[in-house]
């Protein structure tokens, strides 16, 4: 299994796209840290970009990669190797290379310019988001054999989590504004890994004072170590659910 992971990993690292991704993130973060004097502000701007670009790139790259290495996987399946192992090594290879790029591109500048607990949360959130969206990409790719369809599904998933979901929740909040919605909001944000990641980081920044009663409630829940652990646990759940679903489909399916 390690051999396959290594092979996939090196295959991707040799790929120019991951290099370009690393450079893009690196330039972006260094630029943002140098632009504003306040590292907190840079982390805030970085957060916005990370939560928009990282899921998109992860999901698209992982989907195309999955379809491109279909033949390689077919070859491996012909060998006496468990399908689950093949799938897992593919997944880990892609996810690790992308999150490695993220850690290099964002983690290093954060370490140099704005090393703080918030920075750590930002990097951790980014890594989790990468793992989550690679898992979703794999889910999209095992559902259908058609490459175009698979990429379409992946894009739809990104669109849903990055945009549509927030719109729906805002609409729900607006329609039910006569009711106390604080706890409902909390539950609803947990259903979207992007929102969850954003809130973990935001609550650690100064802006949290703007959030009034809802913010205070969130802080009382997510502010403690236990709460942060819970939030990251939820993110982990977001990795595991799509991963196991897609693995199940992959190991049962006719290739």
């Amino acid at each position, binding site marked *: 299994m390690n051999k396959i992971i290594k092979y996939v990993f090196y295959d991707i690292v040799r790929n120019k796209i991951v290099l370009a991704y690393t450079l893009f993130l690196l330039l972006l973060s260094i630029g943002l840290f140098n632009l504003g004097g306040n590292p907190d502000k840079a982390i805030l701007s970085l957060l*916005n970009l990370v939560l928009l670009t990282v899921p998109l790139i992860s999901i698209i790259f992982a989907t195309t990669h999955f379809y491109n290495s279909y033949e390689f996987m077919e070859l491996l399946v012909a060998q006496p190797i468990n399908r689950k192992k093949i799938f897992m090594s593919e997944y880990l290879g892609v996810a690790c290379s992308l999150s490695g790029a993220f850690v290099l591109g964002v983690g290093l500048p954060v370490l140099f310019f704005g090393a703080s607990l918030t920075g750590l949360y930002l990097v951790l959130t980014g890594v989790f988001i990468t793992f989550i969206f690679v898992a979703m990409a794999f889910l999209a790719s095992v559902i259908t054999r058609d490459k175009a369809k698979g990429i379409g599904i992946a894009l739809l998933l990104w669109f849903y989590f990055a945009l549509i979901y927030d719109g729906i929740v805002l609409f729900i909040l607006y329609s039910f504004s006569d009711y106390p*919605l604080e706890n409902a909001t909390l539950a609803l944000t947990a259903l979207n890994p992007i929102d969850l990641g954003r809130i973990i980081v935001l609550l650690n920044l100064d802006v949290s004072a*703007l959030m009034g009663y*809802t913010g205070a409630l969130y802080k009382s829940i997510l502010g403690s170590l236990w709460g942060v652990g819970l939030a990251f646990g939820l993110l982990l759940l977001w990795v595991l659910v799509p991963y196991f679903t897609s693995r199940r489909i992959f190991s049962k399916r006719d290739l």
Partner: protein
Amino acid sequence: MRDLSKHIIFILATLVLLLLGNSVTYGSTLKVCKTCTYTSVKQAVAKAKPGDTVLIEGGEYKEHGIEVNKPITILGRNYPVIDGNYKGQIITITSDNVTVEGLTLKNIGTSYTRDDAAIRVIERSNIRILNNTILNTYFGIYLQNSDNCVIKGNVVTGQDVKGLNESALGNAIHLWYCDNAVISNNKLQGHRDGIYLEFVKDSEVKNNLSENNLRYGLHFMFSDRNVYTHNTFRMNGAGVAVMYTRDIRMEHNTFENNWGAAAYGLLLKDISSSIIHNNTFRQNTTGIYMESSSRLDIKHNEFDKNGWAVRLLSSCIQDTFRLNNFTSNSFDVSTNGTPTMNHFENNYWDKYSGYDLDKDKVGDVPYRPVSLYSMLVEKVPPSIMFMRSFMVDMMDNIEKVLPSFIPENLVDEQPMMRKNNYDNDRKLTKVVR
């Protein structure tokens, strides 16, 4: 002719007599020290005649319940300390024309029934409380029904208010039904309210520094025609609250770092016909929160790095915002409905993205300071959790291009292209302080 000279001699004689009499009544000084005739302030005050000076030499005196019932001057030399030892009030003034200067008063216990203070003035006028240091007290200086008083140059320091209950603390300077008071150059911290004024009219509050108080830096209600200038209110639990008042002038004040879930730079409730000029609002959760306030003239203010620069509730009418600078605020203006007849003109907004073709330094496109999202947050507070979400940014931008939800009349028709530069002596006061 003789008659006249007789008269002159008579008049002169009376004058001389009067002068002599004056020097007799106002001349004597009663010294208080460990080795003097008087070893306690209480003795000296009891023996003093109207017009005398009680001079307290350096040293520590454990005393409380000093009642000043005649017009005398109590003067401290070489920083004498009077320790109340948590037994009750230290100085109670029940006479007109009393001056208390240069003392250090400390240790007043919490008393819910008596509201103990270091210096209390009861229904008297022309009291002067100057350059005292008051430490660790429940109330600092408490004036009730006393007109024409001066409170100047005092330092009132309480305790670290973190985690304390509002009712466990008193106010640093507390005035109730006092007209024509002058409160200046005081430093107030660690109390419930820095300065508390209730039914105080025609007074002046200037050059004070009020910080780290649990509730408000300055709190006043039903106090008309007052002037507040050159004060700094910093890191107070909820900022400054101004309620049920009219004809106020607030100029050259600094409101900063009033940061927290329920904090404001300046909270205005039922204020009318007032002037708010040349103030700085920096890093407050809400710069100005306005409720039922009308006919306010808000000009030449600096709003910098606030969460909300201005929260203008729909109950406000006829307020004018002119020549203010709005920079780096999360939300410039937010409202919960459609406030009417409020006027925005010639403000500088750093989020303004218009152009100026005719180069008259005024933008050609109107600016709408209220964003759709800020209205949504005002209506549904939990939606604040979506701050910085991509969806929200997109919504705001679409609304900016095609406004349909944000109030029509909340618009700056002539936004400035450059920051308004106006003459203000705020920098100077900062250096002086």
